[in-house]
C-alpha cells in the first residue's frame, strides 16, 4: 500500500524569543494524501502559518514525527530539506514576493535556478512560459511586477510555485491581499492545479474558499480539528473527517 504523502504525528512547536516561551502547536496529527486539497482555517495567531512552515520544511518541529512518503524526515539536515522543498513543494504567500527587477518569466524561472540540478536557459524559458500559460498569463511573461495587477502578480507567484511540478502546493492566505473577485480567480487557478493531480494545503480565513477544498480543518489552541468541531468553530461540518485527524481531539475529550 502506498503511504500517504504527508503524515504529522503529535507535532509540537513552541516559539521562543523574548519573554515566556509560547506553545503554538500542541500535538498536531494530520495526514494528506497525494493530490488531496486541504483547507486550514483558524484565527490569527492560531499557528496556521507555523504549521505550514513545518510542512514545507521551513522550520522543524520541537516534538512529534513528520513522515513524507512514509519516510521520517523530522530531523533531516538542511541540505536535504532544501532538496525536498525544491522537488516536493510549491509555496504561495499572501504577499507575492516577486523580485521587482525581474520580469514575470524571470520570476518564475527563479525557482528553476536554485542550485538543484541545471537546466539550459532555453529549457528554463520554455518551462516558465508553460507555467505562466497554466495560470493564464503567458502574455504577460515579459512584464515586470510593477506593471501587473495584484491578481496577476499572485498568478505569477503560483506559476513560480508550479514550475517545478511539485507534489503539493502550500498556500498561506494567497487571497489575503486581493479583492473578492480576484481572490476567487486565484482560488480557481489553485483548484485547477489540484485537478491536475497536485495536492494543496490552503491556509485561509475565507470559509468560502475553504469550502472548495476536499477537506477543511480548523486549527484552534494549537490543535487541529475537523471543521466545526473546534471550540470557536463557526462553519458547519461539510466534509468527512479522517480518523487520524480526530484522534488527538478524541484523546483530549476523553
Amino acid at each position, binding site marked *: 500500500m502506498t503511504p500517504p504523502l504527508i503524515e504529522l504525528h503529535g507535532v509540537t512547536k513552541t516559539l521562543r524569543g523574548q519573554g515566556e516561551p509560547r506553545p503554538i502547536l500542541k500535538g498536531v496529527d494530520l495526514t494528506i494524501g497525494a493530490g488531496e486539497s486541504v483547507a486550514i482555517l483558524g484565527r490569527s495567531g492560531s499557528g496556521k502559518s507555523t504549521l505550514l512552515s513545518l510542512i514545507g520544511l521551513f522550520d522543524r518541529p520541537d516534538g512529534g514525527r513528520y513522515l513524507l512518503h512514509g519516510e521520517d524526515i523530522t530531523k533531516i539536515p538542511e541540505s536535504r530539506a532544501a532538496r525536498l522543498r525544491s522537488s516536493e513543494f510549491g509555496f504561495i504567500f499572501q504577499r507575492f514576493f516577486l523580485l521587482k527587477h525581474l520580469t514575470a518569466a524571470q520570476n518564475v524561472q527563479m525557482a528553476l535556478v*536554485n542550485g538543484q540540478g541545471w537546466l539550459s536557459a532555453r529549457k528554463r524559458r520554455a518551462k516558465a512560459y508553460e507555467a505562466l500559460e497554466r495560470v493564464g498569463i503567458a502574455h504577460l511573461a515579459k512584464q515586470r511586477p510593477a506593471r501587473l495587477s495584484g491578481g496577476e502578480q499572485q498568478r505569477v507567484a503560483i506559476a513560480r510555485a508550479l514550475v517545478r511540478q511539485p507534489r503539493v502546493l502550500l498556500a498561506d492566505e494567497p487571497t489575503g491581499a486581493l479583492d473578492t473577485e480576484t481572490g476567487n480567480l486565484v482560488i480557481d487557478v489553485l483548484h485547477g492545479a489540484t485537478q491536475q493531480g497536485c495536492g494543496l494545503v490552503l491556509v485561509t480565513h475565507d470559509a468560502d474558499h475553504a469550502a472548495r477544498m476536499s477537506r477543511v480543518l480548523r486549527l484552534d489552541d494549537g490543535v487541529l480539528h475537523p471543521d466545526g468541531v473546534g471550540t470557536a468553530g463557526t462553519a458547519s461540518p461539510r466534509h468527512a473527517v479522517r480518523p487520524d485527524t480526530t484522534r488527538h481531539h478524541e484523546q483530549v475529550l476523553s
Partner: protein
Amino acid sequence: MIGLSGGYRSALIIGLQGIRARKTRTLLSMISLFLGVLAVVVVQAGAEIAERALLSNVDLVEGIDGTRKLYLPADGKAGEVIMDTLAGRSDGVGVVSFGPAIIGEPGVAPLNPGAMPFDQMGMGFGAPVYCDENGCYDTLPGTVPQPPGQAVELYLNGLTGDIRSFKPFPLLSGEWLDFSGEPSLAPRIVVNKEAAKFFSAYSIPAEMRLNGAIANPTPRIIGVVDDGQPWSPAAYVRADEIANWMPPNAGIAGPMGGGFEVFMTPDSHELEQVLTSRLVAIGIPAEHIGGFTVNTREAFETQLLIMQIIFLGMASLVLLIGVAGILNVGLATVGERVEEFALRRAVGTPRFILAGIVLAETLLTGLLTAGAAIAFAALALKVVGPYMGGGGYIPGPENVSFPWQAAVAGVIAGLVGGLLGGLIPAIRAARIPIASVMRA
C-alpha cells in the same frame, strides 16, 4: 560556464542579475575598492619595472653572481704579473682600464668630450673642466682649444681573455674578440651600443689617440656588444694588442691606467692564491688587493623584495579600506534583500548557494574593479612612460611597458577584496530564516 556545477552556475547567474539590478551600488563598491586595487597594481608594476631596470643588466655590469672578483691597483709591474698569470687560462680574466681614448680625426676635439653619451652631446654635461685658484676653464690653462671634429671619446678596456663567461655580453653585430692568435698591431676593438651610435652617425676615421701610447694605432672595429652601460661609450680590446703601443717598461696600463679587475670562477682558489702571492712578492701590499664574491643580483633582489613587501603592505591597508566599503554596501544590500534570500531558500536554494550569490556579486565587483584599475594603470604608464629618461639604474622607456605580473596582482587584489568584503554579508544571507517570509 562549462565545468561549473548547477549550484555555482546558479550563484553566478543570480549574482549577475543582482549586479544588473543594483548598478549604482555596484559602482559605489567599485569606487571604494578602486584605490586599493590600483595601489596594489602600481606597487607590483613599479616593482617589476624596477626589477627589469636593475636586474636586466646587472650581470653585464657587475658580473654574474658567484664570480670571484679582485680589484688591483694600477701598477705597471702588477699588469705584467696579471698578464703572465692569466695567460691561457679560462678560469680567470683580467680587465685593465686604459682610461679615455679618442678615435677619429687627429688634432680635433671629440664630439663628446669626457666620453659623454650620444644623447647628451652639446648639452655641456660630462665635458672636462680644469680649475685652479683663479677659477675653472674648459681647457687646460696655457693650451689652445682644439677645433671640433669627427672623433669620439670612449672608455677603452683591455681584456686578457674572454670576459663573457663572467659578463655575458650579448653580441649585437659583427664578432667578438679572438684571443687565440698572436696580438695584432692594428688593435681589434668591439664597441658597446652607445659608442656604436657615434660610428653610425658620423664618418669617423680609424685612428686612436690613447694617453701614454707611443703612437696612434689604427683600430679595427669588429663588433658591437651590449655591455649594459647605456650611459657611456666604451670599447673592448685585447690587452696585449694595446700593450704593443705602450712605451717599454711603462707596463700594460700606461701612465693613465685606471687599475685592474680580475674575474675568476667561484672555484678558482688556487688561481687567486697564486696571483695574490705573486703580487705581494713584487711589493704590492696585501691589503691593497681587494677581493670579493659577486652577489649583486641576489642583493638587489633582496632589497627589491623588502621594498615590495613594505609598499604592498601599505597598498593592502588602502585595499582594506576598500574592503570595508564593499562590506558596508554588502551588509546594507543583504539587509534589504532578506525577503529575496528567504524566498530563494523557500524554493529550495541551499544555504551555500545563497552565500555564493552574495560572493559572486562581490567577486564580480572585485574583478570589474581590477579591470578598471589595471586599464587605468596601463594607460597612465603609456602616457608617462615616454617621458621617463632612463640612464644608469633609472628605468628607461624600453623598460616601462606594463608588466603582466601587475595585472595578475590586480586581479588577485580585486578577488581578495571581493572575497573579504563579501564574506560576512554572504554568511548573513545564508543564515536568513525562511520563516521570515511566512511571517512577513
